């Protein structure tokens, strides 16, 4: 057990810090969830790519830096400490990229990974359907083989980034006689293919980052299928594992929020309450606990271990921490909390963050599902409906 960073790690930290200090936009970008903001965030992705800071955990051959997990954590800490913007490329970096690396053919890797790394192609995910949310195996959209194409029909919803992204990925039922986890296939598709209709969904904040996707006889070449027909569920589970596990939310984000919360408290200390004060101190403690836990998991994985159902504990912890921190900020702000355009953006950041924090306990598997997984797979309680 060793809690000091090596000189090499400290040097790497200094390198990230220096680059971020020069390049992170001084003025916060417009939200990613509208056309103007999305375009600003794509420009930022290209800036990151130009410094080779876009896909730092990826192997060098695909445009990454092949960072180990400790270096990645350092990178993320410096990224958030510098106020780095949200990543338009999130789905590519942590979801689709690693999935293609694990399951894709050499040709698919060469075709899809470099433009993803360069920020030239932004990816949307297309998991959920109106009848398949927490219960993803209830998927009904079909992709029926017709010669060297699949013909896709059906509907996806809550597709993040889909309002403005270039390509999408999801699982579809290739065997119409199948049910549940069988007969599903993981397919990548150009969002501009004829027959795809995007209907942007206006979200809680009034903007339109995610969308419904309607597929009406959409022809997709069979070479866009990943890992073979019928393998969709396994591939999707591996993808969800990446997402829920270590990489979706690194601790730096929450430490940065906790620090802003402490600063907000200090600036308003005379107008607040002992309960708010304790909530602020709690935020720091929980962000630190999340940090230590992540470093522990990283050390375990680097030593050859795996992350399993513990990922569910993580997801519950950070999503509820994030919501609690933003709620505390809203309470400290009092009547100012409701103002949409109050100042240079620092108050508005709390409001936007509070709205977004409501999605955390829902996306990537609702926290109710995570608690079931925890109870059944970690604690060994009987499955729901058993008995």
């Amino acid at each position, binding site marked *: *057990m060793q809690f000091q960073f090596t000189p090499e790690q400290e040097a790497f930290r200094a390198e990230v810090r220096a680059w971020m200090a020069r390049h992170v936009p001084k003025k916060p970008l417009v939200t990613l969830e509208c056309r103007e903001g999305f375009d600003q965030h794509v420009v930022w992705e290209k800036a990151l790519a130009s410094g080779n800071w876009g896909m730092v955990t990826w192997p060098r051959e695909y445009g990454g830096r092949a960072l180990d997990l400790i270096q990645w954590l350092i990178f993320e*800490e410096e990224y958030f*400490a510098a106020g780095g913007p949200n990543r338009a490329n999130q789905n590519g970096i942590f979801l689709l990229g690693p999935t293609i690396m694990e399951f894709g053919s050499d040709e698919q890797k060469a075709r899809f990974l470099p433009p993803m790394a360069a920020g030239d192609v932004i990816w949307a995910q297309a998991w959920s359907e109106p009848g398949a949310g927490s219960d993803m195996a209830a998927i009904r959209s079909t992709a029926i083989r017709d010669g060297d194409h699949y013909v896709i029909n059906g509907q996806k919803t809550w597709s993040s980034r889909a309002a403005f992204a270039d390509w999408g990925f999801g699982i579809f039922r290739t065997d119409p006689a199948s049910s549940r986890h069988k007969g599903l296939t993981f397919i990548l598709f150009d969002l501009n293919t004829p027959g795809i209709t995007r209907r942007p969904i206006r979200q809680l904040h009034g903007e339109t980052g995610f969308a419904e996707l309607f597929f009406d006889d959409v022809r997709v070449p069979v070479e866009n299928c990943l890992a073979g027909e019928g393998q969709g569920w396994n591939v999707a589970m591996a993808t969800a594992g990446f997402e829920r596990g270590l990489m979706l939310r690194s601790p730096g984000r929450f*430490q*940065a929020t906790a620090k802003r919360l402490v600063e907000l408290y200090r600036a308003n200390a005379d107008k607040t309450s002992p309960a708010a004060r304790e909530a602020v101190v709690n935020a720091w403690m929980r962000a630190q606990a999340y940090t230590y836990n992540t470093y522990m998991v990283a050390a375990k994985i680097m030593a050859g271990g795996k992350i399993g159902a513990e990922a569910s504990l993580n997801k519950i912890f950070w999503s509820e921490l994030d919501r609690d921190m933003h709620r505390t900020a809203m309470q400290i702000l009092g009547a100012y909390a409701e103002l949409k355009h109050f100042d240079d953006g620092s108050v508005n950041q709390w409001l936007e963050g509070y709205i977004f924090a409501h999605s955390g306990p829902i996306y990537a598997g609702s926290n109710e599902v995570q608690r079931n997984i925890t109870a059944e797979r970690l604690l060994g309680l009987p499955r729901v409906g058993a008995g």
Partner: protein
Amino acid sequence: MDFRFSEDSLLLASSVREYLTDTHGVDVLRRLDAEGPYDTAIWQGLVDMGLAGLLIPECDGGLGRSLPEAALIAVECGRACLAEPLVDVAFVTVPFLLAKGETGQIADYAAGRLAQPLAHQINPYVVQKADTPIASVDPLRQLAAAGGGASDDPHLLNLGALMAAAQLVGIAEAMLDQAVEYAKIRQQFGQPIGAFQAIKHQLANCAVAIEFARPVLWRAAGALDDGLASAPIHVSHAKLAAGDAAILTAETAHQVHGAMGYTYEVDLHFWMKRAWALQGYWGSRAFHYNRIDSAILGGSHPIGADASFA
């Protein structure tokens, strides 16, 4: 940066765990409850494993281990609801004496001939054998008045709080295990109650609290071992996280046991009462909260994404 225990440390802890599982089961707790909590045979067994001298250098007859390893074993002592004063003597008093250079009686401690914990002013009493003990809610804790001469040294307090936190983690894990086992066998409405999400989600909340208390404990043990100036903050953080996890798990486990949990017959109460006792021993929740509050809001401790291990 390598936030994990060595195989060797984990092996040592698991051998202690096996030993206590085999020799210090609930039948022993019941016997100690009836006959009195101190048992020279149990103490001697711990001494024979070398645990009395765990933190004493090898050249002085000890095992020369570190505070994080002692914390790892203190977790096992909590899990076993150990009544013998091993933690307060060997993992608190001994490292304090070593740190102060007061090594005159170290050989006696290493050999287990001395089993007297030092008193500290943060505690109004001391846990030790007494002819007329002050009654504790915990039937396996004998308390005596601290008397004069109780230390006010912060290092002793930090060691005590760290090791109380470690025991609280083990106690919480033991209570969660008991509640899970009960939820698997207790049938109502034609199924085990553990199949109901109302039960599952409460127990999952305990698992979350324990999962995120453990790394805080290891961080605190490391910081105190390394002599960091910030160690008191980490120790207080560990005491809060472990205490809160233990109390949440105690209340939840009690709820899961239903009316049975309110009986003396169900084992849970031994651990629950130890959790109540340790939650306030070596500094109350308010004491530890205030130490963190003043360091974080007062600005003496660096915070933020680039201060993970400050």
